């Protein structure tokens, strides 16, 4: 934190991220470049606050929705809908894989 306690004001560049967050960032990056980092990390920070960096399926879905909300401003609603489908697929695959291993 940098003083006022808001998770949004944390040093987002230096946080440790959940693997699924990295996946979201990569997927978005091909559409909007470095702004993907800003959107994903900012929404992630808002969602988890200062809690340990873990995401269950529910939280991952909430994160997806927030990311899509921000992304639709930049890439238009139609493409945002396509992105939403891709993020949902990534999320399902991630948790299916996580389930297999543990």
């Amino acid at each position, binding site marked *: 934190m*940098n003083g006022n306690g808001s998770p*949004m*004001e944390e040093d987002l*560049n230096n946080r440790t991220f959940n693997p699924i967050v990295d996946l979201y960032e990569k997927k978005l990056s*091909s*559409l*909007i*470049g*470095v*702004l993907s980092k*800003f959107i994903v990390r900012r929404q992630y920070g808002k969602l988890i606050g200062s809690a340990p960096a873990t995401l269950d399926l529910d939280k991952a879905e909430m994160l997806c929705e927030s990311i899509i909300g*921000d992304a639709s*401003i*930049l*890439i*238009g*609603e*139609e*493409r945002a809908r396509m992105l939403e489908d891709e993020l949902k697929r990534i999320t399902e695959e991630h948790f299916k894989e996580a389930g297999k291993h543990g």
Partner: protein
Amino acid sequence: MAERKGTHVAGLDELIGGGFPEGTVNLVTGPPGSAKSLMGIHYVFNGVNVDGDTGIYLTLEESRDSITRAASAYGMDLNSLEKEGKLYLIDLGKMRMECTSSEELEWGLASFETLQDFLRNHIAFSGAKRLVLDSITAVGVYYKTGELFRRELFKFARFLKESGITSLLISEVTSDGDSRYGTEEFVADSLIKLDYESASGEYRRTLRVKKMRFTKHDPLKHPFLIMESGMEVSPDEVIG
């Protein structure tokens, strides 16, 4: 001879050889309320409707609602074009509003570097041929010195030219009538100055094409009106 991207603003293309040469970076300046944004709206809206060019209108300060309302007042429905995927109205200002100043600066949200990176990706998937950036004055806050701003603007303009998109950058002017950072006009291929003046109790809007590379243009000052369908320049009438 490069293809021209007509503004299709009544009377303007006559002054600039039919439009902006394809792949050029063009600058429109003027004081607040001089119709700079309206000219930008015409440029992207008419680009889609008349020439079938996909367009991007990237606003850094004015809200999306403000732009769509202004357009709609002159019969230009931007929302419909967006739904058809022919126009992207991008409100980066909304994202900036949600950040603290320090966060915005840390991320360089609307710096030339970020815009370049964003546009490179966007142009690739949208196939956009026209861009309006409203305004580059807002980008200046990221640079501590005029020299740094100039260098980054130069790189940004070069990127735009290499990408093939024909851009219209909007810039505010100081009370002296100069561009805010004093360098924008050197980097751009063309400069259109919008203004208003009062003469004999009459209030007139004026337009002057001060510079246009690759084009035999009319450098005189012409009056323009804002009518029901937007801007109308009088190419046959000259002021002073």
